[in-house]
C-alpha cells in the first residue's frame, strides 16, 4: 500500500529509495495518528521487473520480550539471481538495517545454502527463483497486550543477470501484541522451508590444508559413503581463500570424503570455514556448515567420486595395484604360506611347478571375480555394500582370526595336514593343486581390505562401469596379484634356483607361523572395534577351542590307530563348540549401531498406520534408506534426539519406519503419492482420519516439534506407549 508509483526506480535506485523512505515515514506517521497501523503477516511488496520482495512474519501476534522470526522474502525473475553472504567472484549480499525501539533487538540475517551460479569464467554464490532469509527479532519486554509492535527496516539487495541492479527500500510491519506469541498457518510452511534451507552444523570431522596453490578439504565420520554422496561442493565463507571457479574434485570412500581445492590470492585464515552442499544417490541436496582447522594437506579420500577412468586405464591400474598388493601387510601372512609352498616345490618336475603356480593364479583371479560378482549382485539389489564388505561382518573377522591361528599352529608343527606340498590348513592345505588354488583364494579374501584404499581409482571406476567391465577390472587385479607366481609357471626353472629342501625349510616354516599369529591378533583387534569387549571374549574363547582342537588332532596323528579316535573326536567337538559361538557374536555387534528412533520404531505398513490411527494415536512415518545421507542426518539431529522422542512419547505418537534401502513397491507407491521420487519422506498423520502433514526433506528439531503441536491435540487420551 505504501509502495506504489515507483516503476522507474531502477533508473536511479538510490534517489528513489531515499524519496520513498521519506514518504513511508510520513505516511506511516499519518496512519498512526488516524487509525493505528493495520496488522499484516507480510509487508506490501517491493516490485521490479527483477524481483518481488517482502518482509514476512512467522508470528501472527508477538509476546512482550519473546523472540520471533521475520524473513526477507525474495521472489526472483527467471535469469536473475541474488547473493549469499559470500557472493563469490562478484556481487553483494542483501542487508537489513532495523530501526527498532531501544529495548528491542534484531539478530543477524541468516543465509540459506547457496547455489553455484556460473557467469563466463567467474562463479558467484547465490539464489534463483525464491529465497527467504530468516532473522530473529526480540520485541521490548515492556510491551502490553493490545498494543502494536511495529518493525521498520531499510533493506538493500543486489540482483544480477548479466547486469547488476541494486535495489533498496524500507519495509514496515505492524504486529499485534498478545500475552503469548502465536504463529500463523499461512506463513509457517514458508519458515519451515526457510529453516530447512539453512546449512546445519556438520556432524563430521573436518580437516583442510594447502600446499602451494593446491589443497584438500577432508571430512570423515559415519554416514559418508559413495552412495550417500554423489556430488559435493564447498562454498567458502570468506573471499580469497579458494578459487571459486575451480572444479572441486570429489572423492568419497566409506566414512570419508575429500574435495580438491585451488588456493586463491587472499590471505589464509586459521580455519577454513564455509558450507558444504552434498547430493546423495536419491538426488536430495543438503548443506552443512563447517570449520576445518588448516594444517598439513590431509590425505584424499580413498575412492573416486565424479571422475571415472577409461576402461583400459582402470585395467592397467588394477593390474599394477594387484602386483603391489603382494607387498601389503594384509597379504603377507598368506604369502608366507605360499613361500613355504614354493620352497617345497624346489627340485620337482617343471610340469608340477607350472600346475601349482597356475592353480594359485586361478585361485586368486576366480576369487576376485567371485567377490566382485557378489558385490554386483548386492548392489543390484540396492544394498549399500562396499568393497571389502565381508570385513564388516564380525562373524567373518572372527572366523578369519581362527583360520589364521589354525594355519599358524600348523606351521608351528602342532598338527600336520595334507600331502607333500602341504603348507596351509583346511582347504588351503589340501595337497595338490586344490591346495594352491585355495591358498590363492585365501590370499584374496584377506587382501581385500588392503585393496580398498589402494585400488581406489580402479575399483571406484570399475563399479561405475557395466558389469562386464567391472569383472574385467577385477580379473586384471587378480592377474596382477598372481603375476609373480605366473612367472614361475612360465619359467619353472626359476624354482631350481631355490635350495634343496632340508632342515632349513622346517625352520622357515616354523618362523612363518609368527606372521600368522600376528594376523590373528590384528583381526582380534578389528573385532574389538566392531563387536566390543564381549565380541573379543567370544573370539578368544573360540581361539582357545581352535588351539585345543589342533593339539588334540596333533596327538591323534602321532598316536597309532588306537588313540586316533579319541583325539580326533575331541578336536571335532572343540571345533563344533567354537562354531556354535559364532552366532553369539552377531548378537554382540548390535549395540554400536544407532537405529532409527529405536525406542518405538516399528516397520511401516499401510495397514499398521490405519490400525494405530483408529486406536487414537497419531502416526509418524519415516521413509528412509541406509544410503540416504539426508535421512541419516535428519535422524541424528532431529528425530533421535531426546526432546523429539519425549515429545513423541508425550503425544502418544507411534513411529513407523519404511526402509527403502532395497527398494519396496509399497513404499515406492507411497512416495509417488506424495510426489516424491525417493527418500526421505516424513509424514505425520493425526489420530483418527485426515490428511498427513508432509514434513520438509531436511529436518530440524524445531520443525518436527512445531509440526507435532497441532497433531498432538488429535491424540486420544491413551497412555504413552511403554513397550520397550
Amino acid at each position, binding site marked *: 500500500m505504501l509502495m506504489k508509483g515507483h516503476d522507474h526506480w531502477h533508473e536511479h535506485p*538510490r534517489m528513489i529509495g531515499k524519496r520513498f523512505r521519506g514518504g513511508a515515514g510520513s505516511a506511516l506517521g499519518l496512519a498512526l495518528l488516524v487509525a493505528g497501523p493495520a496488522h499484516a503477516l507480510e509487508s506490501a511488496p517491493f516490485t521490479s521487473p527483477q524481483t518481488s520482495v517482502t518482509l514476512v512474519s512467522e508470528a501472527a501476534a508477538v509476546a512482550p520480550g519473546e523472540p520471533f522470526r521475520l524473513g526477507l522474502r525474495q521472489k526472483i525473475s527467471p535469469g536473475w539471481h541474488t547473493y549469499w553472504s559470500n557472493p563469490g*567472484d*562478484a*556481487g*553483494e549480499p542483501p542487508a537489513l538495517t532495523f530501526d527498532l525501539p531501544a529495548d528491542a533487538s534484531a539478530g543477524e540475517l541468516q543465509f540459506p545454502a547457496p547455489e553455484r551460479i556460473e557467469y*563466463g*569464467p*567467474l562463479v*558467484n554464490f547465490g539464489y534463483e527463483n525464491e529465497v527467504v532469509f530468516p532473522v530473529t527479532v526480540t520485541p521490548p519486554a515492556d510491551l502490553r497486550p493490545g498494543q502494536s509492535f511495529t518493525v521498520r527496516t531499510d533493506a538493500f539487495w*543486489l540482483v*544480477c543477470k*548479466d*547486469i*547488476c*541492479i*541494486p535495489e533498496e527500500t524500507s519495509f514496515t510491519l505492524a504486529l499485534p501484541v498478545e500475552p503469548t506469541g502465536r504463529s500463523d498457518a499461512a506463513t509457517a510452511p514458508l519458515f519451515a522451508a526457510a529453516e530447512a534451507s539453512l546449512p546445519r552444523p556438520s556432524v563430521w570431522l573436518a580437516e583442510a590444508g594447502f600446499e602451494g*596453490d*593446491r589443497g584438500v578439504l577432508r571430512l570423515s565420520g559415519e554416514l559418508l559413503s559413495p552412495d550417500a554422496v554423489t556430488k559435493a561442493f564447498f562454498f567458502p565463507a570468506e573471499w*580469497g581463500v579458494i*578459487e571459486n571457479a*575451480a572444479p572441486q*574434485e570429489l572423492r568419497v*570412500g*566409506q*566414512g*570419508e570424503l575429500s574435495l580438491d581445492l*585451488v*588456493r586463491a*590470492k*587472499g*590471505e589464509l585464515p586459521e580455519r577454513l570455514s564455509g558450507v558444504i552442499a552434498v547430493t546423495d544417490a536419491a538426488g536430495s541436496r543438503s548443506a552443512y556448515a563447517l570449520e576445518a582447522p588448516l594444517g598439513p594437506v590431509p*590425505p*584424499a579420500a*580413498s575412492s*573416486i567420486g565424479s*571422475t571415472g*577412468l577409461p576402461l583400459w*586405464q582402470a585395467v592397467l*591400474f588394477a593390474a*599394477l*595395484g594387484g602386483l*603391489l598388493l603382494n*607387498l*601389503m*601387510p*594384509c597379504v603377507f601372512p598368506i604369502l608366507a604360506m605360499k613361500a613355504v609352498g614354493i620352497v617345497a616345490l624346489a627340485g620337482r618336475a617343471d610340469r608340477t611347478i607350472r600346475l601349482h603356480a597356475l592353480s594359485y593364479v586361478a585361485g586368486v583371479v576366480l576369487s576376485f571375480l567371485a567377490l566382485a560378482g557378489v558385490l554386483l549382485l548386492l548392489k543390484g539389489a540396492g544394498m549399500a555394500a562396499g568393497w*571389502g564388505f565381508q*570385513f*564388516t561382518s564380525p562373524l567373518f573377522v572372527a572366523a578369519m582370526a581362527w583360520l589364521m591361528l589354525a594355519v599358524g599352529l600348523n606351521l608351528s608343527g602342532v598338527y600336520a595336514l595334507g600331502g607333500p606340498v602341504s603348507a596351509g590348513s583346511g582347504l588351503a592345505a589340501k595337497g595338490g593343486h586344490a591346495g594352491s588354488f585355495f591358498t590363492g583364494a585365501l590370499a584374496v579374501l584377506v587382501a581385500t*581390505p*588392503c585393496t*580398498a*584404499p*589402494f*585400488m*581406489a*581409482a580402479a575399483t571406484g571406476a570399475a563399479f561405475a562401469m557395466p558389469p562386464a567391465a567391472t569383472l574385467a577390472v577385477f580379473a586384471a587385479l587378480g592377474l596382477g596379484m598372481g603375476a609373480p607366481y605366473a612367472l614361475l609357471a612360465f619359467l619353472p626353472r626359476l624354482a631350481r634356483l631355490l635350495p634343496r629342501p632340508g632342515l632349513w625349510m622346517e625352520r622357515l616354516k616354523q618362523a612363518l607361523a609368527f606372521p600368522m599369529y600376528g594376523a590373528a591378533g590384528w583381526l582380534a583387534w*578389528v573385532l574389538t*572395534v*566392531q563387536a566390543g569387549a564381549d565380541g573379543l571374549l567370544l573370539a578368544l574363547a573360540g581361539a582357545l577351542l581352535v588351539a585345543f582342537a589342533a593339539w588334540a588332532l596333533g596327538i591323534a596323528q602321532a598316536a597309532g590307530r588306537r588313540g586316533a579316535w579319541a583325539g580326533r573326536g575331541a578336536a571335532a567337538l572343540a571345533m563344533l563348540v567354537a562354531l556354535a559361538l559364532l552366532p553369539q557374536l552377531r548378537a554382540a555387534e548390535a549395540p554400536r549401531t544407532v537405529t532409527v528412533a529405536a525406542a518405538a520404531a516399528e516397520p511401516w505398513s499401510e495397514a499398521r498406520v490405519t490400525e494405530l490411527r483408529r486406536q487414537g494415536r497419531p502416526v509418524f512415518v519415516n521413509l528412509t534408506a541406509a544410503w540416504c545421507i539426508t535421512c541419516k542426518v535428519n535422524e541424528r539431529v532431529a528425530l533421535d534426539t531426546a526432546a523429539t522422542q519425549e515429545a513423541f512419547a508425550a503425544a502418544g505418537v507411534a513411529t513407523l519406519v519404511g526402509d527403502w534401502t532395497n527398494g519396496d513397491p509399497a513404499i515406492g507407491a507411497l512416495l509417488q503419492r506424495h510426489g516424491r521420487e525417493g527418500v526421505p519422506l516424513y509424514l505425520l498423520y493425526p489420530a483418527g482420519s485426515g490428511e498427513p502433514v508432509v514434513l520438509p526433506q531436511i529436518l530440524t528439531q524445531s520443525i518436527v516439534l512445531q509440526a507435532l503441536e497441532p497433531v498432538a491435540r488429535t491424540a486420544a487420551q491413551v497412555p504413552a506407549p511403554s513397550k520397550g
Partner: protein
Amino acid sequence: MIHSITRRATLLAAVAITTLPLLPRMAMAGPTVGEPAPDFLLPDQDGAMHRLQDYRGKLVVLEWTNHECPYVRKHYGSGNMQSLQALAADKGVVWLSVASSPEGEQGHVTGPEAKELTEARGARPEAVLLDPLSQAARAYQATTTPEMFVIGRDGTLLYMGGIDSIRSTRPADIERALPYLRNALLAAVEGRPVEPSVTRPYGCAVKYAPAA
C-alpha cells in the same frame, strides 16, 4: 573402520596410486603480488597501442571499468575516482582504465564513446584501453568492476583488489571506507611497502567475451 586400519599401513602407496591418474591440472597462472604483472597489448580510445612494458620506470594503475555498473557509478558519480586519477597524475603515476566488456554487453565502449565518457565525467586517465576480447581481463583474472591493480616501476605487481573496504553502491560509504587504492598508490610513490597488498575487489562481474 577397516579403511582406517589399513590406511595407516598403506597410506603412502595409496596416496601415490590414487593421485596418479588425477595428476594436478596446472593452476591458472594469475597475477601475483611480488611477481611480474602480466603484459598486454591494447588499443586506446584513439587507436594508439599500449603495452605494459612501455611504462617501465613509471608506476602504473590499472582500473577495470564498466561505466554502467552501479559500483563504478558510485565512484565516478561521487567524484572519488576522478580525484584518485588526479592524485595519480600529480605524482606522475600512469592511470589506465580498462574496458573489457565485449560488444553487446553492458560496459562495452568504442573509442569515441570512451572519449565522450571521459569528457563528460571529468575523468583523467592517461588512456582508456579497449579490451573487447577480454584478453587483459583474462590475464589479470579480473573479477569485478571496479577492480584495481598497482604495478611498480620494474613491472612487479604491488597491489591488487578493491578500490576501498566497504562493499556497497552507496557513495556515503566512501568516506567511511579504508581507501585501499589511495594508500597503495601513495605507498608505492613513496617507496614504502604496500599493506594490505591483496584485498577483496567488489562490484559487478566483469563481462567476459567467450574464450577464443
